[in-house]
């Protein structure tokens, strides 16, 4: 194999083949996928998220949440995603078309978050969980994000967003001084808005929730 041009050409062709097949063909196949217009509801899906949630996506990105949490629900019968309540239907490409950066993820050190807004719809729960995961999920190995919160002197009224820590926890950690409150920073608020927005609560023709078959030979 001493004919250099032939070797170089072969090296080039091998990657060209894979680039054409995996990158280019798929870009052509579904790189300009459009939203689905639901005639019954008279509107397009998926939803666009709010500006606040969009800022939260950046926080999710810079803290690297995606390294422990996936955002994809696999079909029934492949893994136990749907049985675990991570979604009612499998995720499809159309769900992600508005996302500037897609966080499918490859790790489930923690649970899938594709529909976390549906199963954990209360902001207060997320604040406590982010501040110290042990508060809501004892035994969790999630990193604490206390640095996204501020322990500050009360300025007039107590903030409605102030965390309501269990009193023994607050005492143990010296967070129970009178005249002080623990509040989320704007980044924590944005992150929680983003988490609450994660909810694919609509159906596409290509992805409908699984309906268990009826007894006596109902169709699947």
């Amino acid at each position, binding site marked *: 194999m001493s004919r250099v041009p032939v070797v170089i050409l072969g090296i080039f062709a091998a990657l060209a083949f894979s680039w054409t097949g*995996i990158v280019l063909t*798929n870009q052509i196949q579904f790189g300009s996928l459009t939203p689905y217009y639901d005639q019954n509801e008279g509107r397009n899906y998926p939803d666009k998220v709010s500006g606040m949630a969009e800022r939260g996506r950046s926080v999710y*990105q810079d*803290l*690297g949440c995606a*390294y422990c949490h996936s955002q994809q629900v696999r079909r029934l019968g492949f893994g136990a995603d749907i049985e675990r309540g991570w979604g009612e239907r499998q995720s499809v490409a159309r769900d992600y078309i508005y996302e500037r*950066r897609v966080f499918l993820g490859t790790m489930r050190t923690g*649970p899938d978050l594709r529909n976390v807004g549906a199963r954990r719809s209360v902001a207060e729960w997320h604040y406590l969980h982010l501040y110290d995961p042990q508060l809501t999920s004892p035994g969790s*190995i999630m990193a604490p994000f206390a*640095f996204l919160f501020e322990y500050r002197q009360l300025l007039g009224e107590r903030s409605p967003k102030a965390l309501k820590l269990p009193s023994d926890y607050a005492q143990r950690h010296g967070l129970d001084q009178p005249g002080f409150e623990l509040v989320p920073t704007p980044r924590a608020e944005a992150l929680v808005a983003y988490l609450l927005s994660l909810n694919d609560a609509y159906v596409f023709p290509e992805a409908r929730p699984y309906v268990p078959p009826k007894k006596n030979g109902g169709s699947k």
Partner: protein
Amino acid sequence: MASAFNLGTSLDPATRPDAVWRAELNEIDASTKWPVVVFLLSAVAWLLVGTVFALISSIKLHAPEFLGDYEWFTFGRARSAHLNAAVYGWSTNAAFGVVFWLMARLSRAKLRHPGILVIAACFWNLGVAIGVGGILKGDSTSIEWLEMPPYATPLLFVTYAIIGSWAAITFRFREEKHIYVSQWYLLAALLWFPWIYAVAQIMLIYEPARGTVQALVNWWFAHNIIGLWFTPIGLGAIYYFIPKVLGKPIYGYFLAMLGFWTLAIFNSWAGIHHLIGGPVPAWVVSASIVASLMMVIPVVVTAINFHMTMVGNFAALRYSPTLRFVVFGAVNYTLVSLTGSAMAIRSVNEITHFTHFTVGHAHQGMYAFFTMVMFGAIYYVMPRILRKEWPSAMLIRAHFWSAAIGVTLYWVDLEIGGWIQGLQMNNPDIPFIEVVRNTVPYLFVGSVAGIVMTIGHFAFAVNIAWMFCTRSEDSAAAPTLFHSRPAMPGASAQ
């Protein structure tokens, strides 16, 4: 195809025993000295940085409150800092150093204007430092293997263009007519890397593709940087060092060629097995599964080639540090690739996907294979360009055993833990928090393994620093070996 005439030379990188040839080699080695020294030293510095972040992220997995108050060291950032320091800092710098030394030697061409390469090496390291710093600061892209912020990557790309062109120029001025197997691998890697890197940067960062096309580009890149950048360089080095240390030709030329081309075709298609079950077209996933299974061909062919070269010479593993590291890497290349093919099968992937199994697997590939081969190569290259010997065989021995035991414990532990995690995750009757708690003992053992590897890295760094401090006149005249070597005609030192 090889004619009968050049078959011999193509199979045999062993030096011809004449003094003229020896003198020429010395001159070629000397021309590569400064760039190779700068690349390899910065590689070792990044190895230590990467190790620190590896330990931080590993400890956080079972003791999440560790450094928990520092945003810069939160798991998602420390982990990415580890990966990027290890991949672009340690592995790529080591690869550059070994590539230039091998390319100059195998081409029988002196490196031209090595000063430019030294400057390029400095800029590469500047780019990696900006990138890793940016990740810690909070500018990570959160795209696996491409976390470096967009203000660091153009510098890396431009610098790479200079470094890659320099290797190509060295090849262009070759005096040796025949192209040895290692050169095919190095050339291929040098041409593939800029392509995959540029496509990934453009389609993910500068003009992001829509929706999950991003995921396809991401895994096309992330699998290829292993499969088409580190793997060919690692294999190229193995193809050089095993025959070189043993002083005998590689077993089969045809096997080498078969292994090379099947690797090029199948590995470049294999990446999408990372998205099995995901929201991407099923056909491209299936195509990648097929390619992943076809990878058995190049892997087995290459393994046979290495094994048949080693047959009858296993005793050499007793004395030669280089050979011991390189053969450890070669064996792990076979194991990790076969595991990888198995993991691409849908029913296996259903268990291993999303678990620590993948993390163990990745470390077997990047460490037990690639990093160990680079260690072996550095033990061979350094004495030849510095013209002095390694000061301590004891430290080399400590390095080998810590690295070998540490990484083996690490991947075996995480693959067992990950397999159990996967089985439990697929059983909805087990609450998720239980699945998490059950991984903790394995993650703890992972940190212990990490500490063992760290000991080896420090032994390595101390030995290198010591080597720089000794004057060549004081250095031992004979190569530093584990044990004194029995007489073996034709065998090369170390």
